[in-house]
């Protein structure tokens, strides 16, 4: 675990840049993390997904998988990949300041 300065805030991050403490997160951090990870601007559709992921994690301690995200967030899987290239669940989790979704076993 190391610390990083993101949007003028010092936060704890893991080796892959995921926030260790979800409560250190704020919207400015989300903007900067998005930008650093290839998402130039967070549109309302991005925010819908990021907030859905984050709320679900805060509520249950688990981040939804891409399939559950596609079924429950109202954003179809194909669009999720357009919004968050490569790994929507991973990237939305990172931007939302929650831990990397554990791979299913």
């Amino acid at each position, binding site marked *: 675990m190391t610390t990083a300065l993101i949007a003028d805030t010092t936060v704890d991050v893991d080796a892959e840049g995921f926030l260790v403490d979800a409560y250190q997160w704020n919207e400015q951090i989300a903007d900067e993390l998005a930008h650093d990870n290839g998402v130039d601007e967070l549109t309302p559709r991005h925010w819908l997904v990021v907030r859905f992921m984050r709320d679900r994690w805060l509520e249950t301690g688990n981040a939804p998988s891409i399939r559950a995200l596609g079924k429950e967030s109202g954003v179809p899987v194909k669009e999720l*990949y357009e919004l968050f290239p490569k790994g929507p669940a991973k990237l939305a989790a990172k931007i939302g300041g929650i831990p990397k979704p554990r791979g*299913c076993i």
Partner: protein
Amino acid sequence: MKKRIVILGGGTGGTLTANRLRRRFDSDELQVDVVDRDDRHVYQPGLLFVPFGLADPDEIVRPRHRQLRSGIGFHEAEIDAVELGAEHVRLADGHVLGYDALVVATGARLLPEETEGLTGPGWLERVFTFYDLDGAVALRAALDRFEGGRLVVNIADMPIKCPVAPIEFAFLADWFLRERGVRERTELVLSTPLDACFTKPVASKHLTYLLEEKQIELVTDFAAGEVDGVGGKLVSYDGREVPFDLLVTVPLHGGAAYVGRSPGLGDALDFIPADPHTLQAHAAPNVFTLGDATDLPSSKAGSVTHFEGELLDANIRCFLAGEELESTFDGHANCFVETGFHKALLIDFNYDTEPVPGRFPTALGPLPLLRESRLNHLGKLMFQWFYWHALLPGRDIPGVSPQMPTAGKQLDAITT
């Protein structure tokens, strides 16, 4: 007063739980009923061997009701829905079964139709799955007439049953095609949505080494969005393509369909959210679950179901007696991984400890972990006997405990 237990599903978890409860309680104390849509119990680990002619369909299927002890009711019917408030299960044939405790053990369901194009043109012609018996039999014929080209093994998305099975399939295909003399003309590819061939880092490293040795190409981070069975290509959600001549796919999985018709019982994928240690469902205190039906972060594997089953009947006893639940499941899984040429390796792990090298103690002597050996292959073959004669009847397998043993494991192999 006599209590009633209803068990949904007569597969591994349902059968062994029914048998253990029947042994634990007298008939005048407890009524045990099992419901399943059919009377065909498939030994699912055998499905891997069918496409290669190493097992025949009739060797791996037995009647479900014959695996149940006397004094257990068996209902062959579709389940319409569970009504949690009324504490009963409605069956499609009109029967209603009330319960004091319910066990959900209906496993996972294959959902090939949820991937665009998968069951369209080419399905069962050049696109197959070995995850059900009909598919495995059809694939056997296709492999027999395969004369080379690109053979792609694809995992649509997690979670799936037996996450090592697709890797085993690739290993066995390498062996099978070499025996048939067409391996030189075959490109063998494994594509996965994961960032490595397996979910656990140390085991992944060992398995990746074996894939390289067997010249099996690995495509990672590939989330299959569409299958073109005519053009012979898989297309990922982010627009990458993997061409194939023969596709062996592991389709998307979900829980049983009735779960979706039962308000409050399951999650978005119809799996059952539950306490990872007590197996009590979040839906209600008198609902328990085990095996592939759960949403737990353990493997969907027979060994997991078996270890859960060895603990679950004790918790059901506690619940019926109004006591605190005592048994805690640790996520223990134990899987033989066929690597071809009559060898296999063994992995043993739980929620907290990933598979590592070392030795696994058994009553018959130690088996090597994460290393290929003939002994492990024999272990895998022998297991089918244990399954029908010890595991399903609910007997404990000597020397193998439901909790993961740490003795013999090289735990310093874990770097994180």
